[in-house]
C-alpha cells in the first residue's frame, strides 16, 4: 500500500493518491477514511483497491459523509475511485 502527494506533471485534478491493492477489508476502508480526514475540503483523492468489499463501502462512505464520488471504475478487478472531499 502506498500513498503519495501528486507529483509534478501528474493529473492536476488529483490531490492525493492511495494505493491499497493487496489489502483486505477492513484496511482499504480504514485507510481511505483516515486519508480523507486529513485532507482539506475541495481536495481530491484517488483510491485504487482490488478487494471487492470497496465496491459497497466506499460509495456508502461518500454518501454518508457528504464526499463527492466523482468517478468509479473497474479495470479488470482493480477498483478505482475519485473522491472529492
Amino acid at each position, binding site marked *: 500500500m502506498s500513498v503519495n502527494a501528486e507529483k509534478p506533471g501528474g493529473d492536476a485534478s488529483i490531490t492525493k493518491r492511495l494505493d491499497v491493492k493487496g489489502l483486505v*477489508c477492513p484496511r482499504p476502508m480504514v485507510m481511505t477514511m483516515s486519508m480523507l480526514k486529513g485532507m482539506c475540503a475541495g481536495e481530491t483523492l484517488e483510491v485504487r483497491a482490488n478487494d471487492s468489499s470497496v465496491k459497497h463501502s466506499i460509495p456508502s462512505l461518500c454518501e*454518508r459523509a457528504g464526499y463527492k464520488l466523482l468517478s468509479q471504475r473497474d479495470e479488470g478487478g482493480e477498483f478505482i475511485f475519485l473522491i472529492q472531499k
Partner: protein
Amino acid sequence: MSDFDFGVAGWFNAWYKKFFREKWPLWLAALFMAISGIMAYGIATWSLARTVSGDNPYDQAKPLGTFLGLKELGGLIDNLLGKIGLPHYPFSGYIWPNGTVNFFRQLPNPMLEPTVGTMLGILFGGLIAALLAKEFALKVPLDKSEYGLAVSGGVLMGFGTIFMFGCPLASTTNTGAMGVQALLMVAGMTIGSYFGAKIIVWLEKRRMSMSLAFADGAGYRPLMHFEKTRTIWPRLPETADGGEPGSIRYQPYLAIGLVLVMIAVLFRFGNMGYPALALSFAAATLTGFAMQRGGICFAHAYREPFLSGFADMSRAIAFLYILLILGFLPMKLLAAASPDLAYAEIFAVSPAGIGIVLGGALFGIGMALNGACVSDSLWRTAEGQVKIWIGLLTLICVSSWLFPMRNEPWFKHYFAPYGSHNIRNVYLPHILHSYPLAVVLMIGVIVLWALMMTWFSGRTFKKYMEG
C-alpha cells in the same frame, strides 16, 4: 444486427449485468441466504426421516454450519501432509430422538460429513459468482503484516469456534433453531468485535506513524514502502488493443462449465444413494453465491459499527436471523408432532454456558483481524484472496487440533454445562413452554441487537466526522 437481435441481446446483457455483474442489495443477498438456509434445514429433516425409515444411514444432511466440517478438513490435511498431529475422528454428530447428545454414527469417509459438503458448497458458489462477475484474480499481498494478521486471526478463531461450538454462519442456523446458545454467540461475537476494532485502529495508527518515517523530500510518501500486491493471474494489461485479456473474458464460460459439471456430479451422487448430501451441497452453493453477490460478510457486520461506523451489514444479518426464525418454524412444529422426527425439532441446538460467550469473544477478535470468518473466508477464497487462504488454513488446523477438548468432562462442566444431559433444557420453546413466546423473544432480541449496532455505528461515525 437486426432490431430483434438487438432487443434480445440488449435485454440479456442488461439482465446479466444486473444479476451477475453488479453487487446485489444486501437485503436481496440476505433473502437468498435465508432461502438456502431454510432449504438446508428442510433437507436435513428429510434425511433424518429417510434414516429413520431405514434408507442409507450415511446420507445425512445438516442445517448450515461449518463446525464439524473444520474438524474433518483438518483430518484430511493431516492425511495429505502425513501425521502432523491433527486428530482425525471420522464421526458425524447425531442425536437420536430421545434428546441425548452422545450418539455418534461413524462414517466410512470424512467427506460424507455433511458440513464438509456445506463448506465446499459455499466455496463453489462463491467461485461461480466471482467467475460470472469476472472478479476472480489470484491476489498475493507481499506485506508480511497481512500474513501475521491472518495467522493470528486464524488462531483466535480456531479457539473461538471450539468454545462456542460453531461459527457465525452456524449462529444464523442456531438463531433460527431458537437455542440459548445462539443468543450467547451473538453477545460474545459483538464483544469480541468491539475489541477487535480497537486493535485494528491501534495497528493502523502505528502503521501511519511508521510511514511518516519513510517520507522523502520529493513529495512521495510511501505509507508502507515494502507493501505491494502481486496479482498472479490474470495479468493486466495483456492485449495489444487494450481489450479484456482472455483470462478475464472467458471467466463466465468457465463458470457455466463448472455448473454443468456440478449438476452431473450431484445427479451421480444422488443415484449412488446420497441425494440428501447432494441437495445440501446445492443449498450451500446457493449460500456461497448469494454471499459473494451481496458481499455478505459476518466479520463486517459485527466489526464495522465499532470501526468505520456502518451498520448496514449488521441490519442485513439481523434480517437474515429473523427470516430463519420464521422459516424454520413450520418444520419444527411438524417435527414436534412426529416422534420419529423429534430430533429435527432441535437441530442445531447445542449445550450452552460461559464458554459460548468466551468463544464468541475470541472469534470476534479473530475475525476482525483476519477480515473474514469461516463462511466469509470460503467465498473470498474463491475470489482469489491469498491472505484469506492463510487465515482459513490456520483456523482449520487449530480447531481440528483442539477439537478433542470438546469431549473432556471438565470442558463440559465449566464451559457448556447447560443442556449437556438434556438438550431441551437450552431450547427456548421448551424453557418458555410456548412457541409463540419463544419466537417473539428471539425476534425481539435480534431487533434490539440491530438497533444497538445502529446506535454504535452512529456514535462511531459522529466521532470520525468531528475528529
